[in-house]
């Protein structure tokens, strides 16, 4: 994990995430869920985190040394971390409300982004 989390999150939550990162335990993603997550991701996340020019999220991550910088190509993301960033934001990424990305849609995004993780 190469992020430096400068946001003032509640310490307990941060601890929980670190714990979760240390011992990832989650079910294998369901194909339908992954597909749905891909669609939601394309709508909400791709414009900033996608490939190609003019993707500030990707560019920012790259500048901070993240490799790969494109989220979809990563194999180390976890559902709790994804939810933390979506619901709390980080740097100039704002948080997203439930009227934008519902909890269920967020689960699907997480399924999509973690589809390549090795257990």
């Amino acid at each position: 994990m190469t992020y430096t989390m400068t946001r003032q999150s509640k310490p307990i939550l941060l601890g929980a995430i670190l714990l979760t990162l240390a011992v990832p335990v989650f079910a294998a993603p369901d194909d339908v869920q992954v597909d749905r997550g891909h669609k939601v991701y394309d709508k909400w996340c791709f414009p900033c985190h996608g490939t190609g020019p003019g993707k500030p999220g990707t560019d920012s991550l790259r500048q901070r040394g993240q490799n790969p910088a494109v989220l979809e190509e990563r194999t180390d993301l976890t559902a709790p971390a994804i939810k933390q960033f979506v619901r709390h934001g980080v740097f100039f990424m704002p948080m997203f409300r439930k009227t934008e990305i519902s909890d269920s849609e967020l689960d699907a995004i997480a399924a999509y982004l973690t589809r390549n993780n090795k257990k």
Partner: protein
Amino acid sequence: MRVPPGVAAKDFSDAIKQWQEAVGPDWVFTSDEDVDLYRDSYSPFWHEEQDPIPSAAVAPHTVEQVQSVVRVANEYEIPLWTISTGKNLGYGGSAPLLSGSVVLDLKRMDRVVEVNDQNHYALVEPGVSYFDLYRYIQDRGLKVWIDVPDPGWGSLIGNALDRGGGYTPMRDHFDSHCGMEVVLADGGILRTGMGALPGSKTWQQYRYGFGPFVDGIFSQGNFGVVTKMGFWLLPAPEGYKSGTVRVRRHDDLVPMIETLNYLMNSNLVQGTTTIASPLLMSRAAQGVSGGPSALLMSPGGPSVEELEKIGRDQNLPYWDCQLNFYGPTKVVEAQWQYAKEKYSAIPGASFVEGPTYRLPYDPQDTDKLPKRQFGIPSLTIFGLMGRSEGHMWFSPIIPMTGEAVFEAQKVFGQAYHDMGVPAISQLFVFPSSFFPRSFVILCGFPIYHDVEKNRRSREVFKGLVKAAAEHGWGEYRTHTAFMDTVADVYSFNNHALRRFHETIKDAVDPNGILSPGRCGVWPKRMRKAQA
């Protein structure tokens, strides 16, 4: 659970129950976790008491639900704060001005009601983003363009009501609207313009309707909740071309902008043009004068003669601007040729040809296109954020003249100097013509999660607002944190305009429930005495 100011806890829980009945319990948010999502992600009050936090949020799906929600709020005198998509980052985001307000979140009203590519208009609900409408149009192969601001995830309605701007010929977003549907504070509903005629065939074609044309009062206002809005769209043009004009000397800016005015006001150049200074921007990039302050004319800084010499030595033009042309190739070529002819009157003027595009473009190619000029939504603007955690916009309007640009460089340079702001924080940008016939300077101040830095930023911001006002320049829009500060400078005849706004406010929203404080308009029961 937080309770809105001035509301009894029992009344609030009654209201919540009624909202849950009206929109469904899933769409009434009261937990801290959910309500926190409505804070301003780019708050200049991060970690401070003043950071506004809503007490709850309600997300209706239909106009009837909006009416019910508003009726309940009105009954209990609960302040609401309406957001369309809540993406007004840099101006307050999704957070209410008055802490403890209930956010009325219209994101779920996301229907594209109609897009007509014969008469080139759209009718949308507030939750429709530029991305949504763009996708709708692409999916159906409709021959119209939208006009996008930076960034593209906001709401057409929200942005137009805040009177934002974009880049194409339809860049004045409020001006492009045609017809509104509005829910009033008592839950009543009306349609403006031709929409007031039942079965109207021209609601999105003729703006004014009959009698007083009210639409404007709902922009940057708190007199009603807009639930539908029509927009005029640009017919998909056959071509686009840009060309850059460069001038060598400092004083050339004057004829450069005079010519720009002539061309724009004659409809020969369309869209937004941004003034740039390759010379000064190169100095800023090199960190000369501490970086950003290189764009200003600060006390003790280099003289114009010195700068012109550096420009000659480094072969950097003093000023340039990109002109944009939309239309069939033969027409845009003729317009560009003519622009060059006019600009050639400035000795030493040179030109850089931009690409000529034949349209329509292949949707596969969008990444290669100048998205802003093509009405293709993106989030590219966030690439300018650097290491900050957000930004807030300082956005004064200055006259569209070279003299005004020079004056702005001096006035803001002096203001920063007087406030003891270090060179590296003396932010400035050259203006753009987002709105016809005027210049707007859009300067983004970084936000950090650092109380001291933000306090200082806010102080400087207010100092700039004051300096601008002293020179006859006012902001066209501002962050919720500064709405009273900015409203205060519009003080002609003892704030007569604001008192007029208040007269209307008290008449159309007597309980003062709709977005209290927006643009300095407070309901009677919350009004502070004016100095």
